[in-house]
């Protein structure tokens, strides 16, 4: 498995774990009280920092298991990466549009913050899934 594919598996696993942890916590809180009373800022910061730190650790471990492959990438890797990133960016933009609409209708800060958060996480997941699929199936830039 190419290092960049391993790296995308790390992003996907960490994103799913982060989303599951934060999502479960948020839903649990939302069941008991109005969303305006949920202290979501600190858990979200922990979640974002955790996502970044775990990704770095995961990549370091992936590189350590096969150091010779860690700094290797070629044209196909770059094309797959660009393709996946483009799809991830679409998801982030879609999430930003949702957040914009929520702001326009004066929704609670909870919804706006979480819309942006989920857009970021889903963008990372969509991007990594696209790249992993591209690594295994036919992939043509043109």
């Amino acid at each position: 498995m190419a290092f960049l594919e391993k790296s995308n598996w790390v992003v996907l696993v960490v994103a799913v774990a982060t989303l599951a942890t934060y999502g479960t916590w948020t839903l649990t809180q939302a069941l008991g009280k109005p969303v305006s009373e949920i202290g979501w800022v600190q858990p979200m910061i922990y979640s974002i920092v955790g996502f970044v730190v775990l990704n770095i650790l995961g990549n370091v471990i992936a590189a350590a298991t096969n150091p010779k492959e860690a700094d290797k990438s070629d044209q196909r890797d770059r094309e797959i990466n660009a393709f996946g990133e483009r799809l991830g960016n679409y998801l982030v933009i879609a999430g930003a549009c949702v957040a914009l609409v929520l702001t326009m209708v004066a929704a609670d800060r909870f919804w706006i913050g979480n819309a942006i958060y989920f857009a970021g996480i889903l963008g990372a997941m969509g991007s990594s899934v696209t790249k992993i699929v591209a690594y295994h199936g036919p992939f043509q830039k043109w």
Partner: protein
Amino acid sequence: MVKPTHVTNSIRALRFANGEMTQADLADRVGVTRQTVIAIEQGKYSPSLEMAFQIARAFGVRLDEVFQYPDSEEKP
């Protein structure tokens, strides 16, 4: 992204004709990863023209001895 390439290749046969060259050896000579050589060999990825020339050079043959484009795929 998922459309299959119509370009076929003789990389596998050329590798065996060149002292059973491994995919890793060919990857090193061309300067790509082994996974990319596997993808090209299996027809899952069409290399750029420059990479195609590098592969042909690694075998010491002409480009059309490595890659072929079937006549049936030409425009009617």
